[in-house]
């Protein structure tokens, strides 16, 4: 069958099978050849693509919930959307959520996803107390920070390359309302938005949409959104049924003029400053989930997201250089997101580090990859790295320089036979 991921590039031929029990999975692992777990296909690049995959979507049962501790034990194929639907009405929400709820718990661990509260709550793995993983030989291992910590820290952020995550115990956070008190502030330039992030440093959630097409003194023009869980209000969740983009947009729809117009409209349709307005959960966390198949906007050829993070001290200078390069190249990104991250964690390959993260969407086109190679160099020069979950083209040396933990990770994979059993197109490209 044909398989791709959220970026719709590349498309590959694959054989896939799903499993509903650990016995079925063990039987799949016994067969010759390597494979990778595939959840909801929301990673952007080739990290869940291989000539053979196992689908986790049917391994999606909830095992236990402790309402005193807010501890949820579930199988790896359960989606974040399911967790919200079930537990928000009881006053519990995910400790960390990325910008989409359409991912699995297994994927959230393997990508060690982060959200708008990274600066206050860290990555998804912070909420993971323990998990069970199936190793190459079918053995099931319990991992936590105390038990098999090596595999625990390699698996969180390990892109599915250490085994198949089976079940996880994750802590949910207690909330009083399903609504968010949101503050929105327009920022003229990079300096202003940096200052703004500092102002809202103690606010639980913060993120900025950034216009990466403006140049000159306006570089970094953005809209910052900060939020807290509301103290009162209903716990009801009404996740909107998405309106779908029905077909691939023709390639020419997305050009420097249309993206400029879109970004102009976005900026000017936001209030210059508004404090503590009440917005719904999906409006605040998942604006893009309300448009089904939004990846079709980028046309048939697909797109990629380039997400980088720079150390805090180098962020201002680095982003200035990068944003100017992007504006000059005119390869404007439809949507670009800026976020101040908190300290990095102990996982081998987790992406966030203390500093600014910038995520940019680019339509796949011929001149894109050489341009991204240039950006890579700037990112490395400023001591940054790229997010593996979004990546489809990072060269090996950029990976190795950006992720000092790669050697320990590669060694573990070699030693335990993971390297023979679990591979993706990405792991081969990166040589881990």
């Amino acid at each position, binding site marked *: *069958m044909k398989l791709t991921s959220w970026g719709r590039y590349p498309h590959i031929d694959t054989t896939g099978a*799903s499993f*509903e029990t650990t016995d079925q999975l063990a039987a799949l692992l016994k067969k010759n050849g390597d494979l990778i777990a595939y959840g909801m296909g929301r990673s952007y690049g080739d990290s869940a693509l291989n000539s053979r995959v196992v689908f986790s979507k*049917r391994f999606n*049962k*909830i095992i236990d*919930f402790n309402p005193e501790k807010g501890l949820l034990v579930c199988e790896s194929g359960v989606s974040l959307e399911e967790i919200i639907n*079930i537990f928000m009405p009881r006053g519990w929400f995910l400790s960390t959520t990325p910008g989409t709820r359409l991912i699995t718990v297994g994927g959230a661990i393997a990508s060690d996803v982060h959200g708008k509260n990274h600066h206050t709550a860290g990555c998804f793995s912070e909420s993971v107390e323990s998990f069970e993983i199936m190793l190459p030989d079918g053995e099931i291992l319990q991992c936590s920070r105390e038990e098999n910590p090596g595999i625990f820290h390699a698996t969180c952020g390990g892109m599915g390359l250490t085994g198949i995550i089976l079940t996880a115990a994750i802590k949910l956070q207690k909330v009083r309302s399903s609504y968010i008190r949101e503050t929105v502030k327009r920022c003229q330039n990079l300096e202003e938005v940096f200052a703004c992030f500092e102002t809202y440093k103690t606010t639980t959630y913060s993120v900025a949409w950034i216009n990466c097409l403006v140049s000159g003194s306006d570089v970094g023009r953005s809209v910052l959104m900060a939020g807290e869980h509301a103290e009162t209000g209903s716990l009801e969740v009404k996740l909107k049924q998405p309106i779908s983009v029905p077909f691939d947009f023709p390639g020419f729809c997305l050009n420097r003029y249309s993206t400029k117009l879109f970004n102009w409209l976005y900026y000017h349709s936001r209030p210059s400053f508004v404090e503590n307005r009440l917005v719904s959960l999906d409006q605040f966390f998942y604006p893009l989930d309300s448009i089904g198949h939004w990846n079709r906007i980028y046309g048939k050829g697909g797109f990629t997201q380039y997400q980088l993070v720079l150390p805090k001290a180098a962020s201002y200078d680095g982003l200035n250089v990068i944003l100017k390069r992007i504006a000059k190249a005119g390869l404007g990104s439809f949507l670009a997101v800026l976020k101040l991250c908190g300290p990095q964690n102990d996982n081998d390959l987790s992406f966030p580090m203390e500093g600014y993260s910038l995520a940019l969407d680019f339509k796949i086109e011929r001149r894109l990859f050489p341009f991204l190679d240039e950006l890579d160099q700037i990112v490395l020069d400023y001591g940054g790295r790229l997010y593996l979950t979004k990546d489809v083209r990072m060269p090996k040396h950029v990976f190795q320089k950006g992720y000092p933990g790669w050697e320990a990770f590669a060694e573990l994979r070699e030693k335990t036979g993971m390297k023979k059993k679990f591979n993706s197109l990405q792991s081969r490209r990166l040589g881990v």
Partner: protein
Amino acid sequence: MNLLILGANSDVAYAVAKTFAKHKKADIYLASRDMKLLEKKVRDLKTRYEIKAACFYFDAMDFESHLKFYQSLDPKPDGVVYAAGYMPDQEAAQKDFKEAKKIFEINFSGAAAILEIVADDFQKRGHGFIIGISSVAGERGRQSNYIYGASKAAFTAYLSGLRNRLFKKNIQVLTVLPGFINTKMTESMDLPGLLTAQPDEVAEYIYKAFRKNRDVLYTKWYWKWIMAVIKGIPEKIFKRMGL
């Protein structure tokens, strides 16, 4: 409400259980052969929806056991879903009658055996509903799938008769005719994406049809029209086609 689901390890059955538990706060009885998997689903349903759930061993092909199985249920169900189904490769069923027989027994004979017992009970109590998951494959026999199709045709006809019989007692019998669904049964098939439904979607439609007291449900809706066209082709032409 107490809902009994037979053949509860199918993907559609699990989706139906979730949908009734969610919308109706129904308590669920799951019945099938793989008890370990059923127990996992019972725990899942209880935690998700804060309802009561239990599982029972049920073998559709062991007709003799059905009465005892049904008698053991307490309280008795208010609704029964027959979701057991078996669809091996058509060629395997052509070459090996054991396979064909298994298809007939799981998809039809087993259904008739247990549903007669259920119907009697519902008739006596003057209360209940029956949902049978049949298939559009039973609407017309095609060379690629006629043994499975024949079993489903029999099931569809059976449900039609049962509906006729139970109508006076105000007992709903809903025949569900799904087209392609993305399940373990169809995993090895290359299904046309646009015409393929997800189990959760199908379950929502089934629940709506139940609420509206419908008799026959094609799911998704366009299968009604696709099958109307297929049934409308004269046999003279149909027999030459490579369907």
